[in-house]
């Protein structure tokens, strides 16, 4: 641990302020709480929102896992782990079950999270209404007045044009019947994991200076018309070529030589775990 910096890099005052914002976010599920986003030695847009949450919450007993697109080994994930390791002395892990804090971009792990775990999302665009309204002062009002017709209209337009809802990621959810929330760029596949979960979900957007939360056991419903049910990506008939899983989110790959399509679990540590259990 590098002692030239405060523990977990941020000064204690900053961390306390961020934790206060987290408390407010937990108290109002799905509501975007503004916070004084700090500068970090990582470019904004590279997960500084999530990282500030991690740094504010982490303590000596924590075990940290960082994933990017489901992978523990991507450059971004490794760099964030290295950085947190430099300014704390915490243990890091690839094992989802072992981690107390998981920082992620794009995925929720396949292993169901427990009540002693926190999943921290790095969020690029926190505002779910941005797609229908560019002006912040208007989207704020829309939330305040629970005026969500434009986002429903977006869904309807998609039905008119394509006969189905075509939003692939950042699929909007209604949190506890009150706020429409952007679940960050997770695939639709992961949306149901947000509903009535055992763990705490925290969302940090560094560039946009917003924090929001889904406390444990909160109702999180993906928006859908009564007669057109919400649908996740379907991987029917496809299996992971490494571990044989049929029920995970799969990445599509191409064989460089043959050009043939194949599939792999996007959650690399889960994939490994399945393989180890099989070989045991």
């Amino acid at each position, binding site marked *: 641990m590098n002692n030239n910096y405060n523990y977990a890099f941020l000064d204690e005052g900053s961390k306390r302020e961020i934790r206060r914002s987290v408390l407010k976010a937990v108290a109002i599920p799905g509501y975007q709480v503004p916070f004084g986003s700090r500068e970090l030695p990582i470019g904004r847009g590279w997960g500084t929102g999530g990282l500030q949450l991690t740094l504010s919450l982490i303590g000596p007993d924590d075990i940290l896992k960082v994933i990017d697109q489901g992978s523990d080994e991507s450059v971004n994930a490794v760099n964030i782990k290295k950085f947190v390791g430099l300014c704390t002395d915490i243990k890091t892990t690839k094992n989802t079950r072992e981690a107390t804090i998981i920082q992620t971009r794009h995925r929720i792990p396949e292993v169901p999270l427990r009540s002693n775990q926190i999943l921290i999302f790095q969020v690029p665009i926190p505002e779910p209404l941005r797609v229908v309204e560019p002006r912040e002062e208007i989207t704020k009002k829309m939330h305040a007045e629970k005026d969500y017709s434009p986002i429903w209209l977006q869904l*309807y337009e998609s039905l*008119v044009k394509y006969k189905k809802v075509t939003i692939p990621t950042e699929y909007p959810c209604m949190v506890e019947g009150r706020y429409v929330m952007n679940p960050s760029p997770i695939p639709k596949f992961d949306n149901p994991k947000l509903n009535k979960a055992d763990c705490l979900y925290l969302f940090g957007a560094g560039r946009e200076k917003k924090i929001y939360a889904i406390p444990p056991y909160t109702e999180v419903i993906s928006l859908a018309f009564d*007669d057109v049910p919400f649908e996740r990506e379907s991987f029917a008939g496809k299996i992971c070529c490494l571990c044989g899983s049929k029920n995970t989110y799969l990445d599509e790959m191409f064989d460089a030589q043959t050009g043939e399509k194949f599939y792999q679990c996007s959650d690399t540590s889960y994939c490994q775990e399945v393989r180890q259990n099989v070989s045991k």
Partner: protein
Amino acid sequence: MYLNEIPELTIKNLTVRYGDGCPDCQNNLEKNRCTVCETIWAANDISFDVYPGEVLGIVGESGSGKSTLMRSLYFDFFPTFGTATLKNFKDGEANIWDASVAEQRMIKNTIMGMVYQNPILGLRMDYSAASNIAEKIIAAGSRNAFQMNARVTELLEAVEIPTSRMSEPPKNFSGGMQQRVQISKALANNPAILLLDEVTTGLDLSVQARVLDLIRKIKAKHGISILLVSHDLAVIRMLADRTIVMLDGKIVESGLTDQILEDPQHAYTQQLVHSLI
């Protein structure tokens, strides 16, 4: 003819002013502008009732305040003075311009429907025609796509837009079609009052005739009250039961349309009627 009826809409002293005004404005008006302080009185102390099922024509030259009046009713801007009450909103006891944002939205979605003079104000040009209409139905609370489709289809058929084009955006449509999409949208939630601001202006005569015919059908079928704004007395003559004549932000004459046409009192109306013959 209306004596025993409760008005659908009552407007009292509606005034929309651009500028702060001065103590002597009303004595120094040149058209609608005060020569002393340059304040523009776009609508100047307008009062009238709209009765159930009637078509009330509003006629007046360009700049007389017709759109100002209509758009105030639809909450696009708020009057400097005045009240408006609706039979269907708090038993006609509350001024709609004092209503909460949520109440205003409710009024716009369920009690009134608006067709703008300029379709760009009334339509999302990049969304499909179907969505433009569904927007109203969604705003009124529907979350059932099948029911919405059915209603959208019904509304488009009523204005004679082929349902094969419902997924196209209005920007691909002719002016007359755009106005008909606006009319469908305005009727989506069966409002009690339809606000039509120059629906036929700028359209070819044959297209005009079709839209006017449509309005006549709506009137016959829905028993809806219609505020019909036009600077064209021919349009008013064809459709309006009663007529209000506006000039420089004020009402200068009002009465049964036939009566106004046969025996205009105000010099401006006389000139208008004369030019019609």
